[in-house]
């Protein structure tokens, strides 16, 4: 299985930092997940081989950590905290609001593959509760309106990207038409 050069460089740098190879497993899994989007069977087999572990051991670790997943997720992984501080400051409402707006429940992914919603335990942002995380970005002191703006921004970002792809496509179309003509 092929990873990016960046991944390979990080991996090669990281492994010798630990007394045993297996210790590098969790960070390696995170990097791999960031790159592939989720931890596929292929990724698991590859990393087990590299770190002298059984596939079962790799799966055990993945299943222990909620941030690691073996199933594909949406482009934006929306994690809403509902632990104590967030709960008393309206985290539950934020979650319900998102669920209604996106039309999916806990661990659900929207049909367009853009959003995955997740109810999570404390994300360490109690001072600015209620809080949510979109991929690696934190959004704090949330209200439903503020949450909407976050979601809209994500949507806009996605649309912009889509536009860019489309324009590249149309450019390609034009080019191909021209060459045919």
């Amino acid at each position: 299985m092929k990873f990016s050069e960046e991944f390979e460089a990080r991996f090669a740098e990281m492994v010798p930092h630990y007394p045993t190879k297996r210790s590098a497993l969790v960070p390696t899994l995170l990097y791999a997940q960031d790159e592939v989007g989720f931890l596929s069977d292929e990724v698991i087999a590859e990393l087990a081989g590299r770190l002298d572990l059984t596939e079962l051991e790799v799966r055990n670790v993945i299943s222990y950590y909620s941030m690691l997943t073996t199933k594909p997720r949406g482009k934006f992984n929306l994690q809403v905290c509902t632990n104590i501080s967030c709960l008393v400051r309206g985290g539950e409402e934020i979650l319900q609001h998102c669920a209604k707006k996106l039309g999916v429940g806990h661990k659900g992914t929207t049909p367009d593959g853009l959003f995955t919603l997740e109810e999570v335990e404390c994300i360490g942002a109690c001072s600015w509760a209620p809080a949510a995380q979109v991929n690696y970005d934190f959004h704090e002191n949330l209200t439903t309106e503020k949450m909407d703006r976050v979601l809209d921004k994500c949507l806009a970002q996605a649309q912009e990207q889509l536009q860019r792809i489309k324009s590249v496509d149309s450019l390609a179309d034009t080019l191909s038409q021209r060459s045919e003509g």
Partner: protein
Amino acid sequence: MADVTLTVDGKKVTAPAGTLLIEACKTVGIEVPSFCYYPNLSLQGACRMCLVKIEKMPKLQTACTTVISEGMIVTSDSEEIKQARKSMLEMLLGNHPLDCPVCDAGGECELQDMTFSYGAAESKFMEAKNHKDEQQWSPVVFFDRPRCILCYRCVRVCGEGMDVWALGVQNRGVSSIIAPNKEDHLECEECGMCIDICPVGALTSGAYRYKTRPWEMKHVGTICTHCGDGCKTTLGVRRADTGMEIVRGDNRDKSGTNGDFLCIKGRYAFDFANHEERLTQPLIRKEGKLTPATWEEAFQLIGKKFAEVRDRDGGSAIGVIGSTRTTNEESYLLSKFARMVLKTNNVDHHRTADFPAFAAALRGKADATASMADVFTAPAILLIGNDPTEQHPLLAWQIRNNVRLHRSRLYVINSQAIKLRRQATNFMQIPAGAEGKVAAFLAGDDAAADAIINSSSTKDQWNSLRDTLRGEQNLVIAFGSEILGSDLSSLVTFGSAIAGAKFVCLADYANSRGAADMGLYPDLLPGYHPISGSSEFHTEWGEIPQAAGLDLSGMVEAASTNKLKALYVVGSNPIGRLKIDSFAFSNSFVVVQDMFLTETAVVADVALPAANAYEKSGTFTNTCGDLQLVKKAGEVTGTKADFEMIVRIADAMGFDVRKLVPIGGGTHADMGQSRGAQSGEADRHAVWLEAHGLEPKLSPFDPMAILDEIQRLVPGYDVSRMNLLAGNSQHTSLAKAGPGVAHRPESISPANDTLFSSGTLGHYSRALKSVMESHEVKPAEVAAD
């Protein structure tokens, strides 16, 4: 290590520094309950059952992870502790189905015992219990998830103990589950250690599940009849229409050298005993067909024929093939019977190791053989040839755990990349068949180095390995059947220069060593005394033929030229196992004693239904030379022990059986009445004598009478009888054995059994067959066109 003194419940406890508190408590008889703690496995601290109060520590502490220290004051039992344990049980029972009345573990379940002790029958939990249906993970392993209390013993014993790592823990917290390595099934060595070690009924065995309850069985600790390692297996037996049926094999009696260990064969492959193809009556060939007959008819016919051949053509026209799975007493008796009664030295068995050369090389060297227990404690081990993981599972377990727990240094020299290389300090791969050259090189023959070097090793590496080995002390040297004859003596020469070095010669069957020690050879008497020399046997046994007899291939040849008129096969299948032409003995009168109509038994003129090693008493000697007691567990009506059959044949030949079996010299006892209210008195008397460690020796079929003679005459077998009867293994020595004889290397043919095969016996074990089938790689489906 220095001793540490502490106080537990007012009692002074002294134990070496570094001892765990839970173990220190055990030494003074204080039981601290625990689920996850298991001696010799890594510490887990998961179950919180072993909580104790230690003065000056703020909270209750886990006794299983606390190392004792000087002056510690510990309370192991108080209201606070009881309450803590009770709450833990309540949590463990939160999802537990409480289906004890149908659970296999009911009656011998640690969770059940604890619940009784701490009275956690009531629960404050109102939530519905999580249910999940039972899963079958392999032919022999079933998993019932709701019963699991997550002690992780199975995960640790599979990984650390077995080096298989087939079990893991998935998820976290309340949703944690034990998971097999292949999503919904296991790919492993099928040893069943996980089942035995499970404190509850979460892991159950395919062979035993839902068959009976623990209290309905009698549990007999006897020696496994499969490989040559001599594990103690506890057989659970129950009354059945056909006698006593063996329903379970496990490790309940942990007094054997194997301790916690058993492989698939010791645990599940007892089922050949219940196979429907068991012979249960004598068969005599009449008009070309094997026809049922009475015992009397069979013994008279055999007696008449054997006597006829002996008197007409001489004893040398009779061949005798002994067994590697019968007891020492039976092998000794057969050897004696052949020489004294049949007057023949044509005696052999399926040889799988060169014990005569081994005995010859070790002659006069005291303490030169290692016991199976030594393998677990030796500071260094050299293993040449063989693949113990497949062929000697206990030896592999001892080696692995010695490395893991005692940091023993393991040197492996093999032509294959065997699994034990993972524990090895140094693994050297050699070209196939070069094991003998390794022995020569180690013994100082530098010229042999060229034959053992390949792309993965250099001459310097070999030289440094040899120097390292020479610098070791108390090294255990174990070697497979690749090393024979003169190579074996070179290896002994090399090892003898190392202080305290001990040897293990690996043979393949349960009593291969016993068959060799008891003289099932054409040219050797028991104890490796050459037939042509002089020994106590020559004087005790009286007139015996002096010239060496024919070995197995010699007998086949003699049969082809019509010189072998009769053949007596006891518990062996030479035609099936040694590629002998099935028509080889068509002109001889063939008598076979076996459990089944094997490839050899089908060509017999008389086939006698034999009891197997689980159905009789006696002793076995394992491949290391450890003598152990074999106890009768099962019984199949209509079969007889080989011992009895040999004596009956001698009797039918008109021989005075008292000369064969020295009876009457032991305890005198009342034989009791044969009718009325006191009938069965003799039997009860025997039971009483046995219970008191005494031996009846009233009957010519009593193997203990022959054991007396073995202990008296066979060098090295003069071990403590009391220890033997108590169920301990007793190491025999070869120091005073006879000089032995050099044999052709071709006369030795290794069994090449794997973890899942066991010679002819394996063909009749459903458990082994089903596992083999499930491990077969199924060919990919191909389109019909």
